């Protein structure tokens, strides 16, 4: 019983950053199409959830959007894409707070 509690506590610790990211008011997200190279199909549902489409890769594999991360991740998962967090619009680590806002 105590071991289970420790596991649950560790899970909470691990989930904390994800919860923080999902609950952020705005963030960049990359959606990787898991069913082909037709990432442009994500643009409509994301836009309908208030997200801003920042970039679609030329090969159609990924889409980069900016908006409420929880909503965008849910939308991408329902549409068949893998949502990944991004630090900036191009996925670079040099993004700043000003860039996010």
């Amino acid at each position, binding site marked *: 019983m105590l071991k289970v*509690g420790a596991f649950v*506590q560790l899970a909470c610790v691990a989930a904390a950053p994800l919860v*923080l990211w999902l609950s952020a*008011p705005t963030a960049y997200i990359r959606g990787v199409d898991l069913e082909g190279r037709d990432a442009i199909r994500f643009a409509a549902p994301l836009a309908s959830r208030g997200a801003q489409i920042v970039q679609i890769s030329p090969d159609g594999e990924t889409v980069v959007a900016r908006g409420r991360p929880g909503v965008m991740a849910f939308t991408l998962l329902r549409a068949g894409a893998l949502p990944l967090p991004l630090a900036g619009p191009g996925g670079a*680590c040099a993004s*700043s707070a000003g860039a996010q806002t």
Partner: protein
Amino acid sequence: MSDAALVPIRRAGARLLVGAFAANCVVLGAVGLTAGKSGAFPVVAIAVALTLIPTVWVFRSETVDAAQRIALALTAVCFPGLFLYLMSGHLWQMDMHMYFFAMLAGLTVLCDRRALIAAAGLIAVHHLAFSILAPDWVFAGGGDIPRVMLHAVIVVLQTGMLLWVVGQLSALITGKAEEVQRSLALQVEADVARGEAEASLKALKIAQAEAERHRAAEESMRRAAEAADRRRLVADALEARLGAIVSDLNSMGVQLASSKEELVRLLSGAALRSEQLRKSHRRAEQEVRAVAADTGALVSSIHAVGTNSGEVRDTARAAASATRQLEPEINSLGGTVDAASQILGIISQVAAQSHMLSFNAAIEAARQSGDGSGFLVVASEMKLLSSQTAEATRQIERHLTDIRAATASVSSAISDATGKVLSIDVSTAGIVEAVSDQIRATTEIAAAADEMAAQIDAASGDVEALDRVLSEVANAMQQADQIATSVSARSVELDQTVRSVLAELRAA
């Protein structure tokens, strides 16, 4: 090395950390409200969620196992991360990194190296991962690998030091616990040895008690024999002593009876003397009162004597004055007598001349014979006259001498009378003073008589008290007589009882 000794300190450390988690929740909420961050609520919610499960652990179980300690350590380093996230973009975000080191140091309360290593690893992973995925969550203005590596080196150094401290602390605590266990084991051995010693002592006491019982039995038998001998001796001695006491009691009863008769006689005499004393007292009282009355009369008569003495003194003084007034008269009388003497001398000369004349006339008559007879008659008459005159003169002289002598004696008598009157005055003055002394003395005598009368009155109370005492003595004597009678009867009973007891004692 057993970790059992570390259980209490680890439990206390876990409770301390849970308390710190709760405090962090509050501070996070306060910082979120102060900073006005929109993401403050999820941060606080995550902090509360991270605090709940450890809180349940530490207050429901007595031990904190290794997995829980690791989970607690990882949870602890989440709170600085939450502060960093909440303060992202703030100038103090970089300063909040120190909280990681503080929290890492605080994990030493768990006394667990693995928990420390896990926490340090999570800090490194946190920095590396978020410097890539969300650099704003870690470094204000973005971070880079060298800064992360610098932080990691510092974390490694601190972790190394903390691991050494935890090792030393754990060794110290477990060593102390082992010492305590050894001392407890020794105490148990000492208790066992003491129990064995007490059992041996109890057995020894039982044996001693048994020996004591044997000895007591022998002693009681010996004492019984001695007691039988002693009873016989005591019976003999008791008979002798009690017989003497009983005979003494009988003789004392007889003496008491005779003493009672003597006391009755003395009491009768005392009562008679008391009655005589009462009568004497009454007489004395009457006499003293008569003396007091006589003394009052005496005082009055002495007062009269004093008054009369004063009058005598005044009379004596008047007599002295009158006597003194006689002295000039007497002196004048002496002068008159002297003047009469001088006249008498003249008369004597006249008588002598008359005699001479008569003699010459006789001679002349004789010469003239016849013619001179008449003349002779005259001469004889003149001679007779001169003789009578001389005789009268001598008689007057004698009378004057007698008058002078009488005057001198009267003067002397007056002087004597004056002296006597003066002495009478002095004597009456002495009498007055003596009378005053007598008045004072008689007054004191009267006061003494009154006081004596009061004393006699008081003595009257004493006489009555003496009568009461004699009455009480008579009653007490009556009771003593009854007691003496009772003692005599009891002595007879005692004699009989002693004889029966002695018979029984000898029989025993």
